[in-house]
Every structure is written in structure tokens, then in C-alpha cells.
């Protein structure tokens, strides 16, 4: 049996952008490559933020991985704006990897036209696209939040989208949708890490049969042995990029309220501000000052430290304002044996059962969140019950198996 060659493509590398998508793609590529009879390479995009001076469309090898530089990119149309040198680079990659399967993790910064290019340059390869976010549906960075009020959006419609981008006509929004639909027709299988996301894409017009539900998993060591019981479970932590839609300001507002009340608990925020704009940095700094010393920002953390850091706390708080998809932090919390307090919406609500293995709070409601934190800190039995009821963390090996099975099914299909 000949070796299965797989090219994983992601829009960033976890070494410089430790987001869920990057980690999932990277870990999947590594795990696949470790399997017998499978060869897997990771190709990631980079931008001037990470690799200033790189030539648009240029190709580099970084360790085992390949980096394709994006010189210009239009976030609205999701198309590259850096000429066609990238096609030659892609052709070189494909000639080298000779993939049977090309598995893309999002199209952001890669450019949606990578799909027809792959179809043309690797006509025999099967193409899989994991939908890690809503970029295809929503031009507002895929957040499905309105640009005006930050309200959650139920789905894309041209006239509704125009309200978010009044400078762009409804016709152009409709064209964006039609264009992206046509492009992703080149994909053989679409992977939805959450049912919530799958339903959003069905609403958007993708046939349900094309969407395969494969929940994310983390490739990490299992949870450490049970620790000694604590009288109070009053340590709360936030993990992830410090960005507005992730809800850190709501969390700090809740912490500030608790500080003023004299509540006995503490909150740590783990994560970097990344490329946050100055205005957000200022706002965040002020919110943090209000919440200190109850709350502390400990800054970025290494992936390898995540489980240990989580185990050093009692609760993981995921106060996101957007729908989320299948937040990796929830999977990691589960692996660390920590119950999650999260916004009761979207992908978070799907992965955390309220009152069973976690708690839901209304998104954006700092008072409710403060009340939940206070109650959780005061009720160690609750912690024990929730932590004990948690479903096991998804097994990464099974996750890899599921992908291999999907690839195999696709390869059995007669090409159109």
C-alpha cells in the first residue's frame, strides 16, 4: 500500500499565533505524520506582522513546516491581493508533497482562490476544509457580531450585512456570498467542529450532507492524578488571546464588582494582547486596574504550560461575546479536569452543559457573571460535582482516526 500524503494548510503557525485553529492544524499534521503509512506536511500562511520583508507569495521552510507569505489580502472578499507568485509557490509545494489529500483549516489570509488553484494544480487530490470560524459567512472577521452594537448576528443576509458595512452595497455582500459559495464548491468535504457551526453553514446555504461533524481534540497529556481537596474553590482563570470578543472586559468588570464587595476569590488572566489596537489596550488596562488585586493579568503562556496552569486554578472562565465554535480552551479545561463557566451561547453552550459539567452565564452580563463567580467560589461541593461529571476530553488519537477515515472515504469517491 502506498503512503498517504496529506498536506495540512492553516492560516497561521501556532508558534507565532497560538490560536485554536493553528494548534488543531499543527497537532493534526504532526499526529498524522507520526502514523505509519501516512506522510503529512503543514503549510501555513504568514503576513508582514510575523515575517516582515518576506516576498509576497514567497515560500519558506521553517523546521518541518512550510510558510507561504501573504503580501496583500482583502478580508472582505477573502481573496489575496498580492499577484500570482503564490501560485508558483503552491505548485512547488504540491510537486514536493504530492498530496492525496489537501486539508485546509480556514481560508483567511490563504485566500479563497486557493481552492480552485488546488483543484487545478492537484486535480487528483481530495480537498477538505475545516471550518474553524465563520469567516466565510461574516465579513466582520467572521465573528458574527454586528459592527455597530456588537450584537450577535443570526446569519448573513445581504441587506443585513449592509447595515454592518454601510459603505458596501447589498449587491456586493450578495456577490461575496455567491463567490465564496462557488469557490468552496471545489471542496470535497467540509468539517464542522461543532454542531452549532454546522447549523450556521447549513443556514448559509451549504448542503448538510457536505458538512462532517468532527469535534476538536487537544493533543496533550491526560490530566494529572487527583489533587488534594481544597476547602474553597475560589481560583478562576481566563485562558486565551486577550481580545474584545473573548469577553475579558466583562470578566474584569465582574471582578471589579467582586473586589468592591470584598469577595474572597481571585482571578488570573492568561494570554497576550497580541496585535490588539491601542484603544483596546488602554481600555483593558483601565478595567484591569479597577479589578486589581482581585484580578491579575499574567500575560502570554506557552502551550505546553496550559494544562499545568489550568490545574493550578479551580475554574476556567470563557466569557466570550461571540458564538465561538469549538473553543480549544474548553477541551483543554476538560483535559485538565476543570469545570468551565462560560457564556451560554453557541459553541460554548454546546460543549458545556449548564449545571452538569459547567455553568452558563448570559454573555456580556458582568453582574450575572460576578454573581456566578461568587456562588461558585462559595460552593466547593458544586465544583466537585461539576468536575466529576465532566465528559472525558476528546481523544486526539480518535480525532486523527476520524480524519483518516474521512480521507479514506473521500478517496474512494470517483472524481467528478
Amino acid at each position, binding site marked *: 500500500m502506498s503512503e498517504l500524503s496529506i498536506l495540512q494548510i492553516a492560516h497561521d503557525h501556532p508558534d507565532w499565533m497560538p490560536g485554536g485553529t493553528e494548534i488543531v492544524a499543527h497537532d493534526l499534521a504532526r499526529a498524522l505524520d507520526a502514523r505509519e503509512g501516512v506522510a503529512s506536511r503543514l503549510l501555513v500562511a504568514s503576513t508582514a506582522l510575523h515575517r516582515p520583508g518576506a516576498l509576497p507569495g514567497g515560500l519558506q521552510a521553517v523546521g518541518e513546516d512550510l510558510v507561504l507569505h501573504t503580501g496583500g489580502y482583502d478580508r472582505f*472578499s477573502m*481573496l489575496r491581493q498580492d*499577484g*500570482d507568485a503564490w*501560485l508558483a509557490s503552491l505548485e512547488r509545494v504540491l510537486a514536493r508533497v504530492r498530496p492525496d489529500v489537501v486539508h485546509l483549516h480556514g481560508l483567511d489570509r490563504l485566500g479563497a*482562490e486557493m481552492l*480552485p*488553484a488546488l*483543484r*487545478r494544480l492537484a486535480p487528483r487530490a481530495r480537498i477538505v476544509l475545516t471550518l474553524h470560524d465563520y469567516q466565510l459567512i461574516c465579513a466582520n472577521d467572521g465573528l458574527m457580531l454586528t459592527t455597530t452594537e456588537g450584537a450577535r448576528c443570526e446569519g448573513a443576509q*445581504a*441587506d443585513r450585512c449592509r447595515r454592518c458595512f454601510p459603505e458596501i*452595497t*447589498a*449587491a*456586493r455582500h*450578495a*456577490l461575496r456570498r*455567491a*463567490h465564496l459559495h*462557488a*469557490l468552496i*464548491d*471545489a471542496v470535497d468535504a467540509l468539517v464542522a467542529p461543532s454542531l452549532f457551526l454546522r447549523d450556521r453553514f447549513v443556514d448559509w446555504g451549504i448542503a448538510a450532507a457536505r458538512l462532517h461533524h468532527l469535534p476538536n481534540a487537544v493533543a496533550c497529556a491526560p490530566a494529572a492524578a487527583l489533587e488534594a481537596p481544597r476547602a474553597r474553590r475560589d481560583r478562576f482563570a481566563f485562558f486565551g488571546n486577550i481580545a474584545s470578543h473573548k469577553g475579558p472586559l466583562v470578566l474584569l468588570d465582574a471582578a471589579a464588582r467582586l473586589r468592591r464587595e470584598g469577595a474572597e476569590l481571585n482571578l488570573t488572566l492568561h494570554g497576550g494582547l497580541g496585535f490588539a489596537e491601542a484603544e483596546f489596550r488602554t481600555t483593558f488596562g483601565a478595567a484591569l486596574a479597577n479589578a486589581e488585586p482581585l484580578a491579575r493579568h499574567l500575560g502570554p503562556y506557552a502551550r505546553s504550560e496550559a494544562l499545568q496552569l489550568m490545574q493550578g486554578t479551580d475554574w476556567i472562565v470563557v466569557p466570550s461575546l461571540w458564538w465561538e465554535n469549538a473553543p480549544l480552551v474548553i477541551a483543554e479545561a476538560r483535559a485538565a479536569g476543570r469545570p468551565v463557566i462560560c457564556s451560554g451561547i453557541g459553541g460554548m453552550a454546546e460543549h458545556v452543559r449548564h449545571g452538569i459539567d459547567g455553568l452558563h452565564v448570559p454573555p456580556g452580563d458582568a453582574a450575572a457573571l460576578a454573581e456566578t463567580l461568587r456562588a461558585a467560589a462559595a460552593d466547593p461541593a458544586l465544583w466537585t460535582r461539576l468536575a466529576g461529571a465532566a465528559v472525558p476530553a476528546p481523544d486526539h488519537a480518535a480525532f486523527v482516526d476520524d480524519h483518516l477515515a474521512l480521507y479514506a472515504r473521500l478517496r474512494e469517491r470517483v472524481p*467528478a
Partner: protein
Amino acid sequence: MNIRADLSLVPAPAVLPATMPRLVGARIVPLADGVAALIFDETAPAPGRQRLDALIDGRPLRRAAVATELDLRCGGRRRVLMIGTGADDLARRYVTLTLAGRPAALADPGWLQPPVVEPTALIDGLADAGRRRLLKLLLTTGASLFGPGGCDGFARAVHQLLDLTGVRAAEPASWCRLGSRARVLSYLLPAGTADPGVTELIALGADRFARIAGVEIRLERLARGVALHVHLPVAVPAGAELVGLGEVPVLLRAPGAEAVPRPLVPWLSRREASVGRWLRERNAAEAEGDPAAAVLAAELRHAATPPELRLCHLSATPKGVLHALEIEDPNGLVRALRLERGGAALDLPLPEAAVRTRRTVLLAGFAPLARARGLDDTARLRLVYRSGRVQTVQAGPLAQYSGEVPARFTAAPAAVAAARLSAERAPTGCRVTTIGSESAAPRLALVIDAAGGPDLLRARAAMLHRERGAGRVELVHHLADGPAAETVLRTLCEIEVTFGLATTVVTLAEGAWPSERLRAALGAVRAEAALVLGAEVLPAQPGWLQIWLRALVGPRAPHVMGATLLGPLGGVIAAGGGFEGLPEGDLPRGRSRAGSRFAAECFGLTRRGIDRIGGLTAYYPDPDILLAETVRRLRGEGHVVRTLLQARFVRYAEPRPIDRLEAAVDAAALEALAR
């Protein structure tokens, strides 16, 4: 002096006194057939008036005669008796001239030297006063007794004498009408000329000399001479000779028939104030009974606020001139606007109501003034006043009509349609370039207007790329040169390397009409059928290619097949032949309008259909009209033209506001084509 023959007198006996004083010799001056003058000079004339008479062969004169005495330069007098008898006849007779009844001069036929002399003898030696008196006699009493119609050659004799007396002849410098009758004639005399003191004006006609009553004359000193302005209360025949009698006689020729009258207002504006006042007064007096003079009086009154012409649009086709000209004439002075092209002119009358109400008038239309061969294509715009004055207000080369619907043609859509249909389009050469490797045997061509921009080009390519059979589709993009062309070409190159979709690019000069681009692109099609797509038009759903291939490829395919065009948010924009088969929810409110229209933004053509559109002789900017005309003709020939209701298309553009004028122009064009 007019002395009639006294027929009651008994003829005197032909007896001469025995002691006859020595008589001076009388001379006979021939003036005309049957007219002669008997003259003799007195060096020391007796004081007072003495009657001059004549005896012919001793008998008193029985014919009409007129006598006068003329001063001589040397101090004496010349006695002249002009009589209605020819010189030859008189020369055969014994003529005695008497003064106060006494013989004073004699002409004897028996003289060795005949008494008949040259006409110059009549004026030789005369003082200026004598010449003036003689001239007046000839033109007045003489003319009434012997003048034109009475005696042949009298007028000629008068002219001869005018020459001989050295009367200054002045040619007209200009003339103006002051109404239907009155005229002012102007003559330029040499600088330093004294006022001739003209008191009377005699018109020398062929059959009569006529004194013109009511003549007024003014002098105006100019840098280049002296202008003599003659106000005539009545018109005189073209080219008539007028003799001004006064201190210095002057011969004034009336303007010839070829002399065009000057417009009074501008002419008068160059005259000195006194002349201006004088003629205004004359005109005002005339205006009471002469409507033409009244019109002129109004023009004079409002000379400071002349009518204004605003050129809103002026362009030409070989067959005519498209114009929108606004005339502001608050005083109602203008009758028409004269549009001239080459040697032809057309008066565009101002509506009478507008003249009466003195409103601003817009003249918008298509004047059928064809371009003259071999001449520069220039135009002149002139205001034709009610007074008859014609004022040039604009002149210059004519711009070629470019096909647009200019402003101000709301009420004249047919004019724009006529211009469009007759517009001359320079042969629109096109560049045909190929990007990528063309399909060897394409079945269907997609003929695409590339003006939509990169996003639309890419999206359309993606929609073709996903279709089964895309490899046998020939892509033909058409565009006009211009700032966006480079971007389009770069995008098409990127599309080729991204999707592997080769394309033929047909590029026309900037300003080429959409219809010209479409025709040029159809001319490049190799496939047996074509699907034409507008710049913003994309297929609505997957699977469209096979449906259109089935519809257009095959022996029974209609020459032309319409398509259903939707808006970006749904709703039908155009559905060719009708709405049958379309979901009710998709139907637009104005379904009759949209439903009846074939949209050139999406339609199919077989090879015969391609040839039919290419063969249309009518040119028009909008491809919709070409398509509509083709459909009309095909249906007229009994062909079925229908609409494919499946595989619809979407126009990814905001709803276009309905341009009612453009629609009216198109409708007028279709009407014109159908005629």
C-alpha cells in the same frame, strides 16, 4: 422757368426790321431726340428779368419750352431756352431768340458754320451757381416737360450733363431698414468734404424723375471721411440713382439688390450720438403706423439688454445636428434661431406663445442638416430678430455626437434617438489578445463585458470553473481602453493561472459604445453558440452551463434566447418574453415593463443569431436596443424567440434608478427602427 406757347397769338410776319442791330449767334445744343436747347451768352446783361422767347422761321414758338439764365464764370449770363424740338430740325430753321420781345440772338441755317454744337457747350463757362441752376432745371421743370417717357434719350442727356458738370458720385457705404418703408442710406465722402447742403433729392428712374419728399440728411465726421446719412421715408428701387440738389449737387446711388441691409441696432451703436438720436426719432415717428418699424423701435429700446443664447448641447451626426439651446429673450425680440451647417440653414422658430409671454425658451431637437461633403464641419448659430436682423452668436467646429443622452432633452427623446441612430462611428478597430491556451473546439462562448471589475470577473470565473463542461467553453471578454483596462487584464491573467481559464480579450478604444464592444466580441467567437453576460451578471445557481448548452447547441435552437435576470436580493429584473413559469414571489411590481424586455445583460445566441446581430446596420449605444431590434425582426420573419426560465442570472448591482429619459429615448429609437 416754364413758358408755355401762347397759341392765341397770330404768327408774326416774317419781316425783319430794316435796321437790325447786330445779333449774337445762338447755338443749338442737342439734348435728346426732340429736345434741344437754344443758348447764347450775354456779356453785359441788362438788369432785371427779361422774358426769353424764340421765333422759328419768324413764327412764335408753339411748343413747350422752358427758359432760364445761368451765371457765367466771366460775369455774364447764358440764356437758355429748352424746347421740345430736335436740334436737327432747328438747324434747318431760322431761329431768332428774343429778350422782352426784342431779337437778341440768331441762328441761321444758311450760316457756313452750323449752329448745332456739342452738349458741353451748354455748360462750358458756367459758374457753379449756373451749373446748379441748370442741373435743377433739367431735373425738375425740364424733366417734367421733356423727361423720361416724353423724349427718348433725355435721361441719357441728363446723365451726360451730370458727368460734364462734374457732379460728385457717392457709392453707398451701407444701408439699414427703419421699417417696412423707411431706409437710411449712408455714403462715405472724402475727409474734408463740406456739407453739400442737399435740400432736395431726385430719383432718376428709367421712365421718370421723381422728387422724394421728406428726405432728411445728416453728416457725420469720421476718421476716414465724412459719412452722409440719408433718411428716406420710402424705399427706392435697388440701384436707383439719386441726385441731391443743394449747395453742391451730389449723385447718390441707391444700394444695389445685392447689398444686404445692415442691422440697425449695431450699426446705430457705432454712430455719433446726434445721428443716433435723429434716427431713433425718425424710427419712433415711423413706428406709429408701421409694425415693422415698431418691432425695430422695440429692438432699439432694449439694445442694452439683448437676448441671450445658452448653448446647452450641440453635436452632430452626418445627418443632423442635435441641439439644446436656451434663449432668454425678455423683450420678445427674437423670432427664430437659425442653425447653419455647411451651406444649409434651418430656422427654428420660437414658439409664438413663448414670444408673447417673453419666457425663456428651450429649443431642443435634431435638425436635419446633413454634413456638407468636403467642408469642415462647422456650425453657426444666429438669432433671427423679428426686425429681420440676423445676429451671429456662436460659430465653430461641430463636435461629433458621442451617443450620450445630454441634459435638457426631457421633452425631446425622439431627437436623441434620431441622433443615436444616425451617429457616425469611426471604424472601431479592436485588439484581440489571448490569455492562456484556448479550448480547441469550444461548444459555447461566454461573451462577457469586463467592465464590472476584478471581484465580478473572479466570481464569474469561479462559477464557470465549478461547472461540468467548463473546459469546452470559450471565454471572450470585451472592454474599452481606459484607466481600468490594465486592472482587468491583470485580473484575467490571474484568473487564467488560478482557474486555468483561458480567455480572448477584445479591447476597443476608449469611448467605444457597449454595443460596439459586444459586436466586436461576437465577431471573435469561434464556438457555435454564445451566451452574453453583462458586466455585473453572474449565474444564479450551479448547473447553469449544461442547461444553456442544451438550449443553444443543436439544430432546433432558436436564434436568440432570452434569460431571466434577477436582482441581488431576488426579484425579477427582466424576463424576456414574459413571466410564465416564474415563482409568484419573484415577480416584480412593474411586471409588465420588466417582463416584456429582453435584457442584453444575459441572452443566448446561436451562430445564426450571432450573425444576425453582427449584420444589423442600425447602430445604437445600448445593446438592449440591438437585441430588441433583432428580436423584432426575427419575430417578423416568423421565428420563435423565447426565454429560458431555468438557469437564471443575477445582476450583482444595486437597483439602478429608472432613467425615464433614457427609457423614452430607447422607446423612440425602437419606434424609429420599426418605421
